[in-house]
């Protein structure tokens, strides 16, 4: 399969590859996919004052899956939690020029974003509830 230059660039030079400590304050973690399906994405965000100040990923999967998650971390940084909710898999498809057979990689990346945001919200809700 021929990859787009952008996929190759993200694959060769992944952005924000790595991990935060899961229990660190303001960190939300999303892990989606399954080893049996051939892809697992872990996406993490670090939120301060409702803004995502940092993001990291680790991905087991094909080149397009790695590129989708790498791109997602780039897009997440600097966005508010609300803005991040609006990232769509179709944006990723378009940016990376993914062929139809690789669309599921972008879906997985969107799921990972949503899961990370939900985890962050759950954790911060917990903090608020405790405060009450």
């Amino acid at each position, binding site marked *: 399969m021929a990859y787009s230059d952008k996929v190759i660039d993200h694959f060769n030079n992944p952005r924000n590859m790595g991990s935060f400590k899961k229990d660190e304050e303001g960190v939300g973690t999303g892990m989606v996919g399954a080893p049996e399906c051939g892809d*697992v994405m872990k996406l993490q965000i670090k939120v301060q004052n409702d803004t995502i100040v940092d993001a990291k990923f680790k991905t087991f*999967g094909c080149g397009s899956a790695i590129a989708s998650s790498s791109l997602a971390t780039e897009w997440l940084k600097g966005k508010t939690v609300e803005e991040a909710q609006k990232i769509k898999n179709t944006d990723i498809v378009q940016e990376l020029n993914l062929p139809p057979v690789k669309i599921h990689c972008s879906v997985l990346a969107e799921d990972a974003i949503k899961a990370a945001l939900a985890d962050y919200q759950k954790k911060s809700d917990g903090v608020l509830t405790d405060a009450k």
Partner: protein
Amino acid sequence: MKLPIFLDNHSTTPMDPRVLETMLPYFVEKFGNAASRNHAFGWAAEEAVENARKQIAKLIKADPKEIVFTSGATESDNLAIKGVVEMYKEKGDHIITSSTEHRAVLDTVKVLEGKGKATATYLPVDKFGMVSPEDVRKAITEKTILISVMLANNEIGTINPVKAIGKIAKEKGILFHCDATQGVGKIPVDVQEMGIDLMSFSAHKIYGPKGVGALYVRKKNPRVRITAQMDGGGHERGMRSGTLPVPLIVGFGKACELCEQEMVKDAARLIAMRDRLETSIMKDLEESYLNGHPTNRLPGNLNISFAYVEGESLLMGMKDIALSSGSACTSATLEPSYVLRALGVGTDLAHSSIRFGLGRFNTDDEIDYTIKKVIEIVTKLREMSPLYEMAKEGVDLKSVQWAAH
């Protein structure tokens, strides 16, 4: 050393320059139709074809008259299986085959099943990918007319106990077809000793041209008959009509002759290179697993799963080395390798498999380069893998509730 490196010799092989040289006169100068019986052009073509037939038959210990030319092994498999099912339909309709056969066999059998022309038993294989002769014996019914088991597997290189299966087939009076595409020219093949009645193989896997193959059809003990699947001028003793591609056949013959002369030397060289590739990679990379039989496999074959990394990304990271993977992402069906699954390899490890296929023209330098690249890319991708991270933290990946998608 030139890049990219070709390490995908199970898919096809580069043509040996000596083969090309033998073919060249048969395009422009000696272009005759081998079926033209009345002039010198035809005679020259016929002579060349018959010479090639001898070279091919010699490699597999057959009689030249038992060689039927086809377009390749896929056609040979189709002709053998469909041809037998049609010819012997009065006798029965049951086929015994194995779950790790090439798609050319499996799909042909499935099509016959779908049309109600045949019933089939798909034998399982052991963890090394081998068919058990006893399983073959147990699967035989009164309706069994054909056993089709491959000589060596195209993904894992495992060599089947063909001789023992041939013996059972003979004992029970059932025809035995063997898809020997990966084995012919690489390991000794003797259709007499192995008890094979029909055998498919092709030129482009043994440093010959693409577009030509053969079906060996036994002439005596028993005399095998098949119904033609291509009708026309009655070429190839009526079994496969169509003008013979003389240059391709000449090349096929030469390729077989070279294999016969150089097999021992080639195999020893390939085994030494393959073993070095295997031990060097596995010594440096923990949790890499060999797929297939540790010893009883093709000289040039090496299939390894690298836990926690996905096959397609491995290939992408080694763009200057031509390899293949059992990962779903590299297949048209989006399913991981059915061969590895049949061995009992977990889906996760099937996604992580790489097939190395060494051939006549690979060099030690290329192997050194490959060892270095594989270790580099697996290490890099494991750093990137959440599964590797979890495993390092002591998480049992099997106990995790994954959200399958």
